[in-house]
């Protein structure tokens, strides 16, 4: 190898290292902090502290975007306060597309790590949110977990070798953690409405009228861990089955009896709002899950009423 080629190689390596370092700095200082999602997750501890310092009965509403876009906190406080005859303060602890694996760490970050706790925890789920599903590696790696959580993570959440490597990479390399965001933002720029395209593509190949091929039996290790933690903290909890658009076969879902069995064995009440009266198809947007603004107040009242009518011992 000639010396000029060696010099060129060295310069190339140096240039690559500088470029990657620059990208990492940019990601840590600008890209990730500018992400609303990451900001929300970073604010979870203060959100939890604010709630526990609030007056009255403190209710944390844990879930994903259907909770965030479905619950009007002020209206919820008012309605539930009226039903329970006491002031109620609430906070929505939600992250887009999150499920039980992420909820565990959201709860830890918001409350338990600070040795705080809400009076009542309301966990809203739909479809397979309670089953062991995909892990949101970027959020767990970069915002929601600490080194102390790694044993639990590797036991329940990231069990495969590839996932563990990706998790460790995302923990130390912010560019990897930001990959999904960069991907989604770029796709939205290229396609104007990437989620709508992805949905359209999905329905091109999944026939809602055909019998679904048998899914592999879901597991519930994350739910079991979640329940064990709630029991350990003596947390009063209600699980709510969220109502997706009625009459829409694409949006309908069944709650796995195994999940109900686990909740029941732990004496956790479950409220099923899937066929709740007052919920009509026109309240939803095109995906059949998220409520429009017109549906928010109706659902909030429904939720408050359902919680207010729970038997004593469930939450009070």
């Amino acid at each position, binding site marked *: 190898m000639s010396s000029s080629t060696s010099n060129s190689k060295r310069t*190339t390596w*140096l*240039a690559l290292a500088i470029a990657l370092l620059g990208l990492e700095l940019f990601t840590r200082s600008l890209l990730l902090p500018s992400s609303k999602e990451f900001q929300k997750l970073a604010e979870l501890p203060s959100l939890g502290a604010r709630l526990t310092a609030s007056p009255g009965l403190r209710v944390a509403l844990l879930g994903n975007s259907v909770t965030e876009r479905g619950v009007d906190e002020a209206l919820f406080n008012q309605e539930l306060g009226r039903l329970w005859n006491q002031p109620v303060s609430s906070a929505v602890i939600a992250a887009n597309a999150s499920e039980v694996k992420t909820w565990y760490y959201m709860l830890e970050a918001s409350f338990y790590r600070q040795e705080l706790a809400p009076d009542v925890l309301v966990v809203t789920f739909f479809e397979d949110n309670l089953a062991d599903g995909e892990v949101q590696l970027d959020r767990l790696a970069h915002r929601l977990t600490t080194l102390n959580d790694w044993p639990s993570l590797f036991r329940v959440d990231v069990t495969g070798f590839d996932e563990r490597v990706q998790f460790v990479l995302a923990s130390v390399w912010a560019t990897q953690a930001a990959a999904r965001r960069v*991907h989604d933002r*770029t796709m939205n720029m*290229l396609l104007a409405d990437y989620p709508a395209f992805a949905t359209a*593509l999905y329905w*091109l190949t999944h026939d809602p*009228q*055909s019998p679904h091929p048998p899914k592999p039996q879901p597991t519930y290790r994350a739910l079991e861990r979640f329940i064990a933690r709630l029991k350990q903290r003596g947390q009063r909890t209600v699980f709510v089955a969220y109502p997706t658009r009625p009459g829409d076969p694409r949006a309908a879902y069944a709650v796995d009896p195994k999940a109900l069995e686990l909740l029941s064995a732990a004496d956790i009440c479950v409220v099923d709002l899937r066929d709740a009266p007052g919920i009509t198809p026109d309240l939803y947007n095109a995906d059949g899950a998220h409520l429009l603004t017109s549906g928010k107040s109706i659902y909030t009242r429904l939720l408050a009423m359902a919680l207010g009518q729970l038997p004593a011992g469930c939450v009070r």
Partner: protein
Amino acid sequence: MNYTALSFWALFLGVYLVYWRLGHKAQNSWLLLASYVFYGSWDPRFLFLIVLSTAVDFLGGLGVAGVTVDRALGRRVAIAVIASSLVFGSGLPWQEWWKVIWDGNTQAPFAPIRTANFQVPMATTAAVLAYWWGAKALYRGPSETRRKAFLTFSVGANLAILGYFKYADFFVTSLLDLSRVCGVQLNLTTLNLVLPLGISFYTFQAMSYTVDVYRGHVEPTRSFRDFALFVCFFPHLIAGPIMRAHTLLPQITGPRADARRTDQMAEGCVLVLIGLFKKLVMADTMAPLANAVFRNPGAGLPPLDGAVIVLGVYAFALQIYGDFSGYSAIARGISKWLGFELSVNFHLPYLATTPGEFWRRWHISLSSWLRDYVYIPLGGNRLGRAKEYRNLFVTMLLGGLWHGASWHFVVWGAFHGLLLAVFRIARARTLAPALNPVRWLLRVTLVFHLTCLGWLLFRADSLQMAWQLLVTVFTHFDLGAPLVRPFVTLILVFGFLPCVLELPFRGEMRLDGLGRSPWWVQTPVYLYLGLMIVFFHARQSSEFIYFQF
């Protein structure tokens, strides 16, 4: 375990860290062990088959060349085959073996009364004994009889293995369909066999060895270990490139220069990066677009527009190119790290101006194999025009069948055979004109679209699906359909653009040029490839397409 799994790279790192600390023979043994571990990780039962195929061709090559197999070597080969049949081919659970050895538990279920578990090992032992008896007689007989017998034995055994596992059910099903049409009742059932991974690749590679020994193109090797490594060298075992003995065997039997001290390391890194980009970004982004078009029928599915179907076919053309050329690039890159050179398997195939040129640029190792071992033995172009076109047609028909045991693969092969013949006829009637840029572009566009028509046949699950898609293209074509714009955008950004970026390097032909470029050329290229993989690898990676062959 495949190249997109991080577990593969972790294991490979372990293999690599030890490899260059070993002497030449130990390197070969180490690579052989690693190859069997990687291959066996899919399904250990298939290891018996690959060992059997290896033994058949190893002994076949020695027999063709008239080289006597000494007792020690013969014993080693026999033990390898019988032992692998016992361990991998008997279906006995390994835990039961361990119980017997450890506990002396003679009540274990595998006690000799269950002879069903020993059918394969018993048949293998009988075959080994029959071989030794037959081989002795052949070695004593006339040399030409011996040469032809061993060649027939080797080729026949390989085709029998391939035929049984890959084509038995196809022939049974076709026979049943034909009998139904003729109103005859046949009492046949399919075997529902699992297709061993890479069987089409390694049987072709092993067969070509024996044929090359017969033709005097290569000397047979006397080392079973080296030959076994030639057959199952893991970087290219599952999906090629199919290597010829005269190219790969000397690299195995001869010492290798330390790749860490040469440009091979850097070239290997570039090839692996390119391969991962082509697979994880290009192929896996195109896959959902193609799958949306080549979907299973369903009454509740929205209808497809003809323009979307055309775009879906383009997407598949880019998917299969990214997938397969990506795999080949990774195989070449890993091989360079280990001090080996594998042949280039793709050379900008969609820039071909004739179907013949396409097959000199696409899956080069297979098309050259078919040329040398099917087309030329059939007579090639030496027996007149009519037979030349027949030979082209038959060769491509067999090439189609090689890809899969289904009629739509056969029709795909026949389609390409027809194209080759038609273009040969057209060229024969006119002197090949020099192509100006406009004519070149028109020819490239024409050949690309003819290739895409072939891909439609290739990818469709059946001839009926292919026909329905074609009819829709011509009856319901609307460029204003909602999905057209997003399909076009994704195809341009993640399919077409990467192909354009390959042009300065002529695919993989001038990658050494990249290594000699200034840093301000190399850096953006590596950054682009690496960051595209990090940011845009599809969340759901699909299996390499050619693994199914």
